[in-house]
């Protein structure tokens, strides 16, 4: 990636790190929400943006991670942040099992199946599946996270936890984007047949993208559970999946700066319209339509890869 983009990231995260000094508690909370959804949207971006699979059920993986955390923490008293890798693994495993039989479905058929998946997960949670999920009330009494003996309790504490994780996610996924794996995913999005012809095992790569995105969302679930200390099925409904989907497509599918912008708009705009009280979502819906019509490719679509021609000339 170009140095300019890295510089932009450094400036962006530095400005953000100073933001809580100026903002009140309320806006720090809003930014926490934005950060959480940014991490989730970046993980969805692997599936939807790079690999181009129509996936509208990402909240299901998020839920698996959050509930894994809540159950292990409340039953066995394991410190909440220690569960982070376990939640990631649980969500990844869940994705592996669920996605295996449906990965070959094309476009819109995959879309409705992933919607079905998130609804089934929600209903299973409400119905207290395995007697572990606490039914419609959910699970409460999740302990606060501790880092080196420091207990995180205030929104500001979580602000730095969430945005550190977000910065790490941006870094890792930027590297992923330009790796062999990332390029293979983009290729199969553009032309699956040609990708297969070039020796990319498309089914395996698609599944890997699903599992990776799901695992990351699962870890995000841990942070959510730690922040809320109480989780219930309604936090993981279809609408949350739709929000993530909108962030990725509105921002520019497959482009990390676009996803960052998208999460600020989708999560932040309804807050800015608070003056309109009840009409804020009405205006938000209108704004979504207008933005899509004005910029159909997304606000910041990925730029085409540039290749250095000199190095090719040297070879010939």
């Amino acid at each position, binding site marked *: 990636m170009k140095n300019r983009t890295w510089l932009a990231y450094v400036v962006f995260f530095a400005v953000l790190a100073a933001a809580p000094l100026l903002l009140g508690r309320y806006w720090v909370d809003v930014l926490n929400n934005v950060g959480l959804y940014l991490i989730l949207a970046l993980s969805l971006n692997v599936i939807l943006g790079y690999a181009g699979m*129509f996936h509208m059920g990402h909240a299901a993986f998020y839920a698996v991670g959050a509930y894994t955390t809540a159950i292990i923490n409340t039953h066995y008293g394991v410190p909440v942040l220690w569960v982070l890798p376990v939640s990631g693994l649980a969500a990844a495993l869940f994705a592996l099992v669920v996605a295996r*039989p*449906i990965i*070959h*479905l*094309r*476009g*819109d*058929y995959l*879309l*409705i*199946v992933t*919607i*079905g*998946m998130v*609804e*089934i997960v929600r*209903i*299973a949670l*409400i*119905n207290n599946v395995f007697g572990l999920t606490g039914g419609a009330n959910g699970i409460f009494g999740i302990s606060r996270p501790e880092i080196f003996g420091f207990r995180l309790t205030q929104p500001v504490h979580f602000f730095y936890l969430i945005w550190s994780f977000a910065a790490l996610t941006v870094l890792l996924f930027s590297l992923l984007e330009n790796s062999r794996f990332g390029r293979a995913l983009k290729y199969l999005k553009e*032309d*699956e047949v040609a990708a297969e012809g070039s020796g990319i095992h498309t089914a395996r790569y698609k599944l890997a993208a699903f599992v990776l995105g799901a695992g990351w969302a699962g870890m995000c679930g841990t942070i959510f559970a730690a922040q809320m200390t109480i989780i219930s099925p309604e936090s993981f409904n*279809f609408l949350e999946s*739709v929000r993530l*989907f*909108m962030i990725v*497509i*509105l921002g520019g*599918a497959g482009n990390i700066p676009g996803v960052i912008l998208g999460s600020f708009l989708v999560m932040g705009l309804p807050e800015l319209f608070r003056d309109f009280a*009840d*009409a804020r*979502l*009405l205006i*938000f*819906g*209108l*704004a*979504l*339509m207008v933005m*899509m*019509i004005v910029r*159909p*490719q*997304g606000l910041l679509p990925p730029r085409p890869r540039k290749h250095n021609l000199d190095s090719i000339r040297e070879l010939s």
Partner: protein
Amino acid sequence: MEQFFQQLTNGLAVGGIYALIALGYTMVYGVLKLINFAHGDLFTIGAYLGLTLLTSLALTDHVGGFLGVTILAVMVMGLVGIIGILLERIAYRPLRQSPRLSAVVSALGASIFFQNAIMLTYGAKFYVYPQDLLPVMPVNIFGLSIPLMRIIILAASVLMMIALYLFVQKTRIGTAIRAAAIDQGAARLMGIDVNFVIMIVFFIGPALGGAAGLMVGVYYGQINFTMGWIYGLKAFTAAILGGIGNIPGAMLGGLLLGVVEALGAAYISIAWKDAIAFFVLILILIVRPTGLLGERVAEKI
């Protein structure tokens, strides 16, 4: 056995409603390859408009229950159809050449818009339809007493489906719709006004959805502004189940989904009712990846 047939007829009535909504999804998908996520909210608008017209015009008092509700249905269908045309003009036409998911986000935006517009106009409370619109006597069929309402709902939806089928198969415009669904470019070369076809589709689909909204109001007696999500989702499931883009498929998928859901709620678990529909969908798609009546075609690029 009594319970089985009661649930079966109930499922058919609900399935008829699902099928009417599913037709809107599938027709729009057929010509535009777009999932119209705002369709569920057009259905809700139908339910609310029906209630408003019902109470303000008091038609049923002047001309009697049946005729009153029929006139009402025609009015609701016309109005919702016009909203559908406007929706396409404003939110979808500028995005016709864009990546498909951009239009989906525009549709989601329209859905949020409609839902909140209804909430702001009517308030967030539940509304109740008058219960004495149609006679509520049970009818005896083969020794079963079935509520008349159930039969009327099923008959009305089947009637509309037959009318639509004949329209699409037998008329000139219907032929144009089918041609545009197969290949828009070729249809245009054959002198078909594709924009006009899309307008017609965006009239008929939402009109049927609006009629379904009215039916839900009359059948269940209670409506609220968020009901479009779940009905829309179920109907979309039905459309996919039958093979999206396929009109008989949407009818079959809707009726099947209604029956499966009613029987599942009765014999398996009422708490899992909404999940059963999706389980069935996933199972069918694993066996038949393009739905029951969908053609097995490679993804168009």
